[in-house]
């Protein structure tokens, strides 16, 4: 199985924490869905740096792999990664939460290069993604489609309609990554609406499934690099993550799903995030 080198992992850690710091700077405007952005950031970092066949200078390249953020509220992470990849200038990030900004609180395809499809209302991404994957078959193209769903989002019926359809149509160029951080707006997913066992549910719907630690870059990479897990089946990666990962006082706290912050809290938060990055880099060095 393919492995990432220590150097690769260090670079990915630096990339994901660079994005976390940029997200905090964006939040100087007062609020944002930081929890899901930070929980999904390591996954997005691997996807854009190591997996996706894409060209930031040519975002509509016909043969590109597609990425759709079905859980659109996590878009702080997507914006930061896209800027880091060079899709647009970093300064655009800092217009977040201002009038008519291209980086709105939910991503819009027409506002920003690199956004494949506008999302925000949960449960919309997977149906769209499955059709884009089916269109590849129709057009005899070999691009792949990757989708991030939330575990809270998995309560939406349309997710399961689409899951059934993807298996029925044997869409094996489609991969779903579930950012299972265990929290949603009002509390623990297990208490609000228990979506478990997600692995068994997707298997029962006809998908090939793997579970990974969603903050272990090597495991995320290995899973994503080996799709489709089974020919003729769509792939599902259930990634166990920590909501607000990287900001110690927000981690695994549902109140950081959408953080209303004071500008004065941001500098401290950036320092704490930098400290976390240092710890993670040290772990790799050892």
């Amino acid at each position, binding site marked *: 199985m393919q492995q990432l080198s220590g150097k690769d992992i260090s670079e990915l850690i630096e990339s994901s924490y660079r994005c976390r710091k940029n997200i905090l700077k964006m939040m100087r405007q007062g609020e944002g869905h930081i929890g899901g952005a930070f929980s999904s950031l390591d996954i997005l970092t691997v996807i854009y740096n190591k997996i996706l066949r894409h060209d930031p200078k040519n975002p509509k390249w016909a043969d590109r792999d597609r990425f759709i953020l079905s859980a659109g509220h996590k878009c702080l992470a997507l914006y930061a990664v896209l800027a880091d990849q060079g899709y647009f200038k970093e300064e655009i990030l800092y217009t977040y939460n201002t009038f008519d900004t291209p980086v709105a609180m939910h991503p819009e*395809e*027409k506002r920003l290069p690199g956004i*494949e*499809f*506008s999302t*925000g*209302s949960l*449960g*919309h991404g*997977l*149906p*769209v*993604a*499955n*059709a*884009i994957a*089916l*269109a*590849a078959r*129709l*057009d005899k193209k070999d691009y792949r489609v990757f989708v991030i769903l939330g575990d809270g989002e998995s309560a939406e*019926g*349309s997710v399961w*309609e*689409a899951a*059934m*359809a993807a298996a*029925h*149509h044997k869409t094996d160029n489609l991969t779903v990554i579930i950012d299972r951080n265990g929290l949603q707006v009002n509390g623990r997913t297990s208490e609000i609406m228990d979506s478990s066992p997600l692995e068994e549910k997707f298997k029962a719907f006809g998908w090939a499934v793997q579970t990974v630690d969603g903050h272990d870059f090597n495991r995320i990479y290995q899973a994503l690099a080996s799709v489709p897990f089974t020919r003729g089946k769509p792939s599902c990666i259930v990634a166990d993550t920590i909501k607000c990962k990287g900001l110690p006082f927000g981690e695994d706290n549902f109140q950081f799903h959408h953080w209303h912050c004071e500008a004065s809290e941001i500098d401290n938060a950036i320092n704490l995030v930098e400290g976390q990055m240092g710890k993670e880099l040290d772990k790799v060095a050892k």
Partner: protein
Amino acid sequence: MQNNIDNKKAGAAAINLQQAVIEDPRKRFSDALVELGAKNSNVIYVSCDSSLGASGAEFNKRYPERHFEFGIAEQNAMGEAAGFATCGKIPFIAAYVPFVTLRCFEQIRDDLCKPKLSVKIMGNNCGFSVSALGPTHTVLEDVSVMRSLPNMTILSPCDGPEYYQAAFAAAEIDGPVYIRIHRTKTKKIHGDDFRLKVGRGEILREGTDITLIACSTMVANALEASSILENKGISAEVINMSTIKPVDRELILASSSKTKKVATVEEHSIVNGLGTAVADVLIKENPVKMKMIGINDLFATVGDYGEMIEYYGLSPAGIAASIEEFLR
């Protein structure tokens, strides 16, 4: 065959309608889809277990690789249609009106209308098409909700040639289109050389006392009502307004300026339907006296098609009686 309607001769319409050819709208739409499929390889069919009764069977037979079945799951199917459209496909998605409009309304709003994607929604069995099935299947609010969406075009054809043309016209439009498809066989009003102009109504019969604006099945009934009215000395102008959105503002203003009175006729709720579309123009630009004939904000009872039309005052005689009362 030329147009059955002679605009210049009052009374001609009713005579010709009595002799008119009867056609199945779904068959004509199916013919058009098959032709479209031959002309444009991007045209695809998205089915919600709805091909056989919804103009998709022949398309499926001819182009099975472009026929996508998603079963009884309209939210997913609408999202799938949007996804295909992002890849340059022109999906025609079909299901009974309630399921293809209301069940997946948010997908239509967010995934079709907001990004202005070229998905064509075929609302099958509109109005009282299947009224015996009861109010779950008889949705009289489809125009109401579709009209509220930016970027949406709404077509409600009245006869075979117009259904046939609507499929081609919809495919040409850069954006989402909702096409209302009735089950009842229609009297052929237009000739085969008819060309539908989206956004343009047409005067089928000229008159001077009142303008009757109708769509779908009610065009034929309004024409027949105009003959009844003529016998009572009332000259009614009859307009087929097959594009409900965007509605033909110029024609509404021109005709209402002449007749000074307007009545709309629709096999649909009077809440935000064709009548409201016409009223939106009149109230702002030519506030003449107006009547809306349709279903008065209620869930309809059950019955066969003829019974329903009779009961809700939408037969030619019922329409004529309403107009007479309105003009009294």
